[in-house]
């Protein structure tokens, strides 16, 4: 066999292997969508058909009537948007300061934040819950944080842990450190204060890093399950991720078509975001190596 033919067979083999694997990876998505429009008897029948006999789109409407889904989706959306906006402001300010502004103890403070980044949220879930439950002067609490429910079942309690994470600061600092030092000098000569320099020079140039951070934070917040699970016990404060588990999987005979319909609905916003911002998704993962 000559060299070119050999190379071609190799390429065909690789293509075959990756295509097969890709189909395997994507099959659950197709099956999810198809199951969401089947009837329950058809799902349970031992004779499996890939496509539904009758496409029942009303499954989606029915799924959304299990509990106040409008409310759950709005909760998730509100928490996600607030988290993104607040983290962008807080993290880019701190990142800029750590990268460009000289002040005493800067490197130690940054190192401490870095240590905090290593602490996974699972480790701190119990104490964070206790801190937020005993937050003074809210939810019927007194000065010492006793007597009420604190920030449990509030939006603040759901949002605070997401905006406290240091990884956005890390991301922004890395970005701002790449600017030339002469930029600060020029700003200073022109009479810019640090804050003015941030607002007029750095911020307008930060679009790529802020987009990356926004995409990462949005995915992380929308997709999170553990935190809302702990912080809410009121139906009206549930997020979509918690609701899909509690409303559909807790019964003995699960209504699979409704579960799949609800799953499709809460996956959809992430797919749409991914479609429009794929570049930033990939960039964010690669530059930080963080699990979104």
């Amino acid at each position, binding site marked *: 066999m000559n060299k070119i033919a050999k190379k071609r067979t190799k390429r065909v083999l*690789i293509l075959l292997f990756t295509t097969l694997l*890709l189909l395997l*990876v*994507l099959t*659950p*998505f197709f*099956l*999810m969508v198809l*199951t969401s429009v089947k009837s329950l008897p058809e*799902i349970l029948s*031992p004779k*499996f058909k890939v496509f539904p006999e009758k496409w029942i789109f009303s499954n989606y409407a029915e799924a959304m009537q299990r509990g106040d889904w409008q409310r759950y989706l709005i909760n998730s959306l509100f928490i996600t948007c607030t988290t993104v906006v607040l983290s962008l402001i*807080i993290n880019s*300010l*701190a990142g800029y*300061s*750590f990268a460009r*502004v*000289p*002040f*005493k103890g*800067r*490197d130690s403070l*940054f*190192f401490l*934040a870095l240590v905090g980044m*290593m*602490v996974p949220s699972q480790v701190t*879930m*119990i*104490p964070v819950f*206790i*801190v937020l*439950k005993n937050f003074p002067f809210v939810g019927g609490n007194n000065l010492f944080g006793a007597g009420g429910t604190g920030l449990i079942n509030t939006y603040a309690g759901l949002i*605070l842990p997401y905006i*406290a994470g*240091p990884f956005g*600061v890390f991301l922004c*600092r890395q970005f701002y*450190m790449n600017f030339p030092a002469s930029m600060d000098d020029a700003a200073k000569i022109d009479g810019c204060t*640090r*804050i003015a320099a941030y607002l007029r020079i750095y911020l307008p140039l930060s679009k790529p890093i802020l987009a990356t951070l926004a995409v990462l934070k949005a995915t992380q917040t929308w*997709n*999170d*399950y553990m935190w809302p699970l702990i912080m809410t016990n009121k139906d009206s404060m549930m997020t979509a*991720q918690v609701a*899909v*588990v509690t409303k559909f999987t807790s019964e003995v005979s*699960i209504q699979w078509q409704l579960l*799949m319909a*609800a*799953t499709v609905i809460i996956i959809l916003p*992430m*797919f749409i975001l*991914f479609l429009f911002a*794929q570049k930033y998704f*990939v960039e964010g*993962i*690669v530059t930080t*190596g963080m699990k979104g």
Partner: protein
Amino acid sequence: MTLFKAKKPRIGHERVGYLLITPFYLFFLAIILLPGIIAVINSFTNYDLYKTYNFIGLDNYKALLIDPLFKKALLNTLIYSVLYIIPSMSLGLLLALLLSGEGRGSRIFRTGFYMPYIISMVCASTIWLWMFDPAAGFLNQILAAMGFEASTWLKDPALAMTCVVFVSLWKNLGYCMLINLSGIKGIPAYLYEAAEIDGANAFQRFKNITIPMLQPTTFFLFITTCISSFNVFEQVNVLTNGGPMNSTTTIVHQIYIRGFSEFKMGYASAISVVLMLIITLITAINFKYGNQGQDTNIG
């Protein structure tokens, strides 16, 4: 490590720096650092979230040593880690090697493999909850159609953990691929060209260039995967709730059950501290052996 190479303060000390980091640092202290300290303190108490709050010394830790459920959870977490880390890292590397081309085909494939990573662990779990269902699930229907015997998957104590691992693998394969890809992109092309001129075949090039040059990436991926494996919780909670017969309960699942079902906050804090020590150990190994003078763009 490029982390600490921040330009040294050139002109003294500007207080506005503190002002700019204040919003971040307040949240960071209150929600990350302070809870870390509180966890340690609470682990020496019998706090029940309401009235009881007494210091009981090392009793929680002594109880942990003889708690069969905690031992089971520790063992399960280890099994999960071993079953998850090796396939995810090797498959991720394989995919990255096969799809490192710049063509449009590779790009479409990469996007496809990346899809499961952007959905939530809850959604991944609900999809697979159906796939694994003994009565209605896709897997058993396929097995039946091919004439095999049905399996009970998540309801089978011997198989449940493997199923949980499989779901994690399916969801995170794209992540492992992506990190490996960024490592491969960082290897200079002239190394391969020189090796090819010297007559090295594809396997030799892989063994003598790709593997050593990729070592920092591999190590980084190993550490992050280790840490996330030790923190596995969401998929367990949705897929099996720790069952059947506690065969899938993990460390974090135990923290959750002890803390929020039994309200043993002191005991749950003690488990958290143990978990924190394990994570610290892994991170310390990272700092000691990772990135040995070799610079990567990540981590």
